[in-house]
């Protein structure tokens, strides 16, 4: 019995290790991106925004279509540009997010289904 437990332990340890190895860095990036998104973007893009001149679009499936809601191409470069420079009434995040932070955010936006 003890032996079975031990081997089960071993198997799950190997399994966990394999999981970490396989998805480690991109997953981490997405997780950090999610934190940044919850902090900076969710208030406008995921919730109700009364009184705003323009309702911020939902960002699910952002990269699934060829175009962003504004009609610009749905590319990583374009989305980074939107975040840094803002777009019309969307505020610019210029100097407020690091390059790594921007990468993480874009990685997370790709996961929004």
């Amino acid at each position, binding site marked *: 019995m003890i032996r079975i437990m031990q081997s089960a332990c071993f198997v799950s340890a190997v399994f966990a290790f394999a999981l970490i190895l396989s998805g480690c860095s991109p997953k981490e990036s997405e997780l950090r991106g999610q934190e940044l998104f*919850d902090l900076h973007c*969710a208030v406008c893009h995921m919730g*109700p*925004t009364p009184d*705003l*001149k323009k309702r911020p679009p939902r960002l699910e499936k952002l990269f699934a279509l060829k175009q962003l809601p504004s009609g610009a191409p749905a590319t990583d470069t374009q989305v980074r540009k939107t975040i840094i420079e803002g777009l019309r*009434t969307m505020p*610019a995040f210029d100097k407020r997010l690091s390059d790594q932070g921007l990468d993480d955010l874009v990685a997370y936006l790709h996961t929004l289904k």
Partner: protein
Amino acid sequence: MNLQKLVPVVLTGVLLTTGCQSSTKRYNLRGQVLEKSISTSEITVKHEDIPGFMPAMTMPYKVKDPAVVQELQPGDAIAAEVVTANNGKDYWLEDVRITDESGRKSAKPAAPAHRLEVGERVPDLPLINQDGKTFRFSDFKGKALLVTFVYTRCPMPTFCPRLSSQFAKIQNDLAKSPEDFAKTHLVTISFDPKYDTAPVLRKYGLAYLDNDPAGFSHWDFASTNSGDLRKIADAFGLEYFEEDNQISHTMDIVLISPEGKIMKYWATEWTTAELEDALRQQAKTVSTPQKPLTPRKAG
């Protein structure tokens, strides 16, 4: 009274009321009390990030139970729940707990407020608008003025973007009655003179003016040097400070009469309609428009 004893009472209250207010949301706040006002049941808190609600910043909050405000002292570290209702338009603190009192003595006394009283004359300092042109409040003598403060990178939808959106609505509404339009003016002043240069303000303004630069003749987006900004903000009772390219600030809308006197402040609650009505009322105190919009034809 001991705050700890209050907690179960507050909690029970919360449990009882949650059923009726299905649209409320709750977030955990941790931070330090900087100031308190018993008369308005408000505390100013320097708080950590509140995911889903607000990044770390310093701002005033209403506290549901005024007894709690009595108990709190500047310098106290607290944990509390931010409750939002009405789609985030209204928010307040509940279930406030002091987690550390040791900061009490070291806390600096709150800066004295120099806010001008209603009826006093506004300071006439130079401002620079979105076209790089210098102007002063006195240039609008004979017009009722509505003034507010924002910064273009402000990410909080219930703060600057809301203020600018409300001003945009007022601008559009007034444009429908030429007489009121001619006797009123809007001014938005930036808290962030370093970043919000004239071209940045111009781009920001155009987004709220449906891309029509003609709108600037009735709504200026202004900046000034940091010394004068501090003087104007003090005069209007605003507090702000910058940290990591993010500016913590209080909100204020000021109504100025055609004679250049402060008529009214809004700092916590208002509606677009209320602002617009007050501005139109002030405009009505001007007997004749300064200049007719179009020259009258003889005969």
